[in-house]
């Protein structure tokens, strides 16, 4: 384990949380007319809006959290889990993301909202109220759909995103910025998944600390431009 893992700033963790929430919101929204029921269509749209809204609050908090540990404004540094790199093609992937990834991000928000950083304590609590309904949605759909490999992948990538023991998350926990450490977060996630088999033997050799993932790749430039609002600029009237 590299010593640099412990030295990442809170900025990098919250930036990755914001990136993931923004992209998760977009992936949810992509299903707003493709889910198995009309109610699920509406829920997908609503959860998408929630997560995009949460990302805006998190991005808005970054300026009070120190300085980035690396470049922040290109696709290579967009710090999302691989599960969100490409649109999902199956409803089971949506459900697994909803039940596992969304919960992992929520647990981190809970850890931040109850930590000792005032800007996060004051701004993140409302997210937890909204996320309750994401949890209910994911939990119920898990009973309806065989998520199989999608669940295993989402869980493994969630644990990778939380990070290794004695890494930055545990260091932030020791400093009081997070009320949960890595072991707490893993246990709480497992509790929310109600008896599903947890991944074993995580491999950290290729783990990228800033992007919090082991797999190479990432979102493409077109997706980044859409997320950053650059795509809309093509439709703006030319300035004269």
């Amino acid at each position, binding site marked *: 384990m590299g010593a640099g893992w412990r030295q990442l700033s809170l900025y990098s963790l919250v930036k990755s949380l914001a990136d993931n929430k923004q992209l998760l919101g977009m992936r949810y929204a992509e299903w707003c007319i493709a889910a*198995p*029921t009309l*109610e*699920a269509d*509406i*829920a997908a*749209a*609503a*959860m998408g809006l929630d997560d995009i809204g949460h990302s805006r609050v998190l991005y808005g908090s970054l300026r009070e959290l120190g300085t980035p540990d690396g470049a922040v404004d290109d696709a290579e540094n967009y710090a999302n889990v691989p599960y969100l790199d490409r649109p999902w093609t*199956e*409803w*089971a992937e949506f459900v697994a993301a909803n039940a596992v990834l969304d919960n992992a991000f929520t647990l981190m928000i809970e850890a931040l909202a109850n930590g000792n950083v005032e800007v996060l304590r004051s701004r993140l609590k409302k997210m937890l109220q909204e996320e309750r*309904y*994401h949890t*209910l*949605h994911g*939990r*119920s*759909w898990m*009973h*309806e*759909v*065989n998520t*199989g490999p999608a669940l295993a992948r989402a869980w493994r990538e969630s644990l990778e995103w939380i990070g290794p023991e004695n890494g930055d998350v545990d260091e932030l926990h020791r400093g009081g910025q997070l009320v949960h450490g890595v072991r707490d977060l893993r246990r709480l996630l497992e509790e929310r998944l109600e008896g599903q088999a947890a991944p074993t033997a995580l491999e950290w050799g290729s783990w990228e600390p800033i992007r919090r993932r082991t797999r190479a790749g990432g979102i493409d430039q077109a997706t980044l431009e859409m997320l950053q609002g650059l795509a809309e600029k093509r439709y703006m009237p030319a300035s004269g």
Partner: protein
Amino acid sequence: MRYTRVHTDVYEYQVFARKTRVDPLHQVGSVVAPDDDLAMAYARATYDEERWVEMMIVPKAAVISLWAPGGDS
């Protein structure tokens, strides 16, 4: 992976809400879901456009009707 377009067993829930503490709860709509968890998520997603101070759902099967349009009394 295959899935069915609708759940095999679903229940209707009536959704009640109010905007202020002094208002009575009134029915704002209904949702159909296979269990209480999903019904709560659907009710919140579908009817959250107003600034409700309270929202609740009731299984339609739990409602006891005294009379209704078209009835005898």
